[in-house]
């Protein structure tokens, strides 16, 4: 073997130990030094994240899925910053599955989620860029026989003095022959040229010309498209099927049973779907889930009256509640929610001897590699994952059971691997396929002292655990408390002496999963509307009331103050037209280490319908790597959260999911989008997440605004005025 691997042992040990600072310092087979012998035809690849071609193109290898959140742009910004590249020469490609090089440093496995992409990559990707820059500088210094300190790099040009200039491409081959430096210095923030400024998205052009490739767009030679008849209830299995009518459909090639249903395969989607619709399946419903939403609510209601597993205990909330002069209590209800990404779930699988190759909007590489390998009797590294753009995900494509991916693998296996398979879920398959944001009930009780100061707070949550039964259970579920069920509640930021948070996690046959902003989707609403109720009971302004309880939370205070100031909180809201009532509401919430405050203005019409006119959003997400991407995520998160506030609701009847498509599971439309104004809190702290934290804040801000307008407290999502 003539392949050469440069690696720095100390750093590799560092990586193995799971420490923070890592640079996966080994080269793809034959990449770097081999380039010398080939006259610079091979790219210069100083590490697993950067490749520089002889044409000066800089390819950033993104370890995180681009599903709309802008991570390809953010990761490339970090590399370009330290490399001093020209933004136009930078392109991005998705990383393969390789946990040794591409682990999410916050998790130890490869995957995207929890608004962690930039937070975990901030140092790593800058190191990757800085290392490449240092090697280009050394190559230039040697070529020109000058001291490296005299060399500058700006906008992709390496220069010394006035006369000596070289492009990255001209230095790539020489740089590739150099040892990878042990330690490179990173820039001081005051020298940043990209971080903190707008850099255009790297995926814009492809996505506005129809050229971006999603899983739905993959077509392999001889590929068959599979559409699956899924059981009508969760937990049912196929017993027998009659394929005659399906096979009579023109274009249908095969019909096979798999654990999750019966798959119809054809050369194209429409034939496969017609075949699927013609198929007759007899289901084994012995283990089927048969409850409806009403029965689930009744069971949960009983649990609301009983103490659950403790998630936080400060002081003695029960005693303080009993002793206080004024008590308030309120129950809240949150429905199941579907992710409903615009691209329904799909996955392409090709089996070969000792290999399985997958094309997918791939969000959970290490878990999926393991799940697929187990089904096929392969080693995880024999599962090759091609990460494509995802047409949304909101968590759904990181499924702990690899559900839809294994369905595609089972189909490919059932036909003996004779053709590549593209599994396509219809919109109805996607919406009825489970893995919802769980249904929750909450009960909050609080007490105010004679001065109107809250002295006790008790919060009970009832709802299915997302982590139980997954590989993450060990780390995320302790003493009966799934951290994701109570996040946003157990870390209530307000200074109240006696706080109790407890949890019931009933087990039900409805598959559940994380959904953009996870626990905060419900805890943000109940805590932020209930604190508003306390403010009202205390006769206090909602912002002032919160401020008084947040003196030890400078980030919350800063975001709240910024949103309030920019929204004109302290001036009266302009009145509506005759017959209209207007209101303004506020909410502040931390999720994924980011604090977001929003002020919403609403107008309630005479007929009781309402619209959200304007939202002013303030966010503290540490250093703003790309402010425009942050603004986009705040705007989009608010729109996504508004869909849940206005419409989102999956219901069950006798175990059947009652919704199937957008006519009965509506999404926010363009005419319902409020004017959104985003303000970013100045910060020198390392970046935190932005993909999720805007989502949980909008519903409570709107509910509080509706209270201000109408006097009605809404404690159930979606929001419906009486």
């Amino acid at each position, binding site marked *: 073997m003539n392949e050469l691997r440069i690696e720095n042992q100390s750093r590799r040990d560092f990586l193995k130990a799971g420490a923070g600072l890592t640079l996966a310092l080994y080269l793809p087979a034959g990449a770097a030094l081999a380039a010398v012998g080939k006259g610079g035809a091979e790219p210069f690849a100083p590490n697993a994240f950067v490749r520089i071609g002889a044409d000066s193109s800089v390819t950033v290898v993104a370890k995180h899925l681009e*599903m*709309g*959140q*802008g991570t390809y742009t953010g990761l490339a910004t970090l590399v370009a910053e330290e490399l001093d590249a020209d933004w136009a020469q930078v392109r991005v490609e998705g990383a393969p599955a390789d946990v040794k090089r591409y682990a999410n440093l916050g998790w130890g496995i490869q995957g995207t989620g929890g608004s962690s992409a930039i937070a975990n990559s901030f140092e790593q990707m800058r190191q990757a860029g800085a290392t490449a820059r240092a090697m280009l500088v050394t190559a230039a210094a040697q070529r020109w026989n000058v001291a490296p300190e005299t060399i500058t790099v700006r906008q992709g040009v390496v220069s010394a003095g006035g006369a000596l200039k070289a492009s990255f491409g001209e230095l790539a081959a020489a740089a590739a022959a150099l040892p990878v430096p042990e330690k490179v210095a990173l820039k001081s923030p005051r020298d940043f040229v990209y971080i903190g400024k707008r850099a*255009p*998205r790297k*995926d*814009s*052009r*492809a*996505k*506005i*010309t*129809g*050229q*971006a*490739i*999603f899983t*739905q*767009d993959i*077509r392999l030679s001889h590929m068959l*498209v599979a559409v699956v008849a899924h059981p009508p209830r969760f937990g049912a299995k196929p017993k027998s099927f009659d394929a005659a009518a399906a096979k009579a459909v023109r274009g249908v090639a095969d019909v096979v049973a798999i654990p999750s249903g019966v798959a119809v395969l054809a*050369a*194209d*989607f*429409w*034939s496969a779907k017609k075949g699927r619709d013609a198929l007759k399946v007899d289901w084994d419903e012995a283990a089927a889930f048969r409850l409806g939403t009403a029965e689930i609510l009744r069971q949960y209601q009983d649990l609301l009256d009983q103490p659950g597993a403790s998630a936080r205990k400060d002081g003695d909330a029960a005693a303080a509640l009993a002793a206080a002069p004024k008590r308030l209590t309120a129950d809240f209800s949150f429905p199941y929610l579907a992710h*409903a*990404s*615009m*691209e*329904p779930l799909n996955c392409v699988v090709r089996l070969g001897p000792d290999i399985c190759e997958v094309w997918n909007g791939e969000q959970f590489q290490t878990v999926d590699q393991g799940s697929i390998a187990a089904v096929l009797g392969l080693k995880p590294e024999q599962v090759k994952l091609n990460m494509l*753009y995802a*047409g*949304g*995900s*909101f968590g759904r494509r990181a499924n702990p059971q690899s559900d839809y991916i294994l369905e595609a693998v089972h189909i490919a296996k059932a036909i003996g691997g004779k053709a590549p398979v593209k599994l*396509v879920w219809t*919109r109805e398959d996607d919406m009825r396929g489970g893995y919802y944001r769980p249904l929750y009930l909450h009960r909050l009780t609080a007490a105010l002292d004679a001065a109107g100061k809250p002295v006790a707070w008790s919060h009970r949550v009832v709802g299915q655990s997302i982590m139980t039964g997954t590989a993450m259970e060990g780390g995320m579920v302790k003493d009966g408390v799934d951290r994701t069920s109570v996040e946003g509640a157990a870390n209530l930021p307000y200074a109240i002496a006696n706080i109790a948070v407890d949890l019931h996690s009933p087990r039900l046959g409805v598959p559940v999963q994380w959904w953009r902003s996870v626990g905060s989707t419900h805890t943000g609403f109940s805590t932020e509307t209930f604190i508003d109720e306390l403010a009202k009971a205390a006769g206090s302004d909602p912002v002032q009331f919160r401020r008084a309880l947040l003196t030890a939370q400078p980030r919350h205070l800063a975001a709240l103050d910024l949103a309030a100031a920019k929204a004109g909180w302290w001036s009266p809201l302009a009145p509506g037209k005759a017959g209209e009532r207007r209101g303004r509401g506020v909410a502040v919430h931390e999720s994924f280490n980011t604090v977001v405050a929003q002020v919403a203005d609403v107008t309630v019409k005479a007929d009781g319908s309402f619209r959200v006119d304007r939202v002013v959003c303030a966010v503290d997400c540490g250093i703003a790597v790309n402010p*425009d*991407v942050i603004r*986009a995520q705040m*705007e*989009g*998160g*608010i*729109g*996504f959260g*508004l*869909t849940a506030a206005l419409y989102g609701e999956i219901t069950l009847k006798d175990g059947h999911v009652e919704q199937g*498509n*957008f*006519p009965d599971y509506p*999404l*926010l*439309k*363009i*005419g319902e*989008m409020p004017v*959104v104004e985003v303000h970013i809190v100045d910060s020198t702290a390392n970046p935190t997440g932005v993909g999720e934290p805007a989502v949980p804040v909008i519903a409570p801000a709107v509910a509080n605004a509706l209270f201000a307008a109408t006097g009605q407290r809404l404690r159930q999502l979606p929001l419906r005025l009486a």
Partner: protein
Amino acid sequence: MVTLNVNGVRRRVDVAADTPLLWALRDTLGLTGTKYGCGVGACGSCTVHINGVAVRACQTPVSAAVGKRIVTIEGLHSKTAKVVQAAWEKLDVVQCGYCQSGQIMSAVSLLVKNPKPSDADIDAALAGNLCRCATYQRIRAAIHEAARNLA
């Protein structure tokens, strides 16, 4: 077997007559810029132009498109289209991008009919184009930007 005029080219398509145009475009002709989102005409991801009018390709059987001019995102070359796409790029409208072909097809169709649309005109013309990422504020701004640049 039917013959379709797609992006100015006559293409022979061997599919059942009831096949929605969407699947003939995507699976038979390989024009994958037109997206499948709902299959019931409720999301707008599959929007194409037929004789200059924005229609949902998932609700149009190929038999109904025969003899008409079909334009997809790949064949969008008019001045209006270029200006719309430039505005989309300038304002970085896209997030996941899956619905954006349809948004752009609807926006171009609107601006051809109404070169100076108001917010209400935009809201009405694009009411059938859903965006789960909620890029709506930027879609509106990009249409206004394009209208200014076309004036």
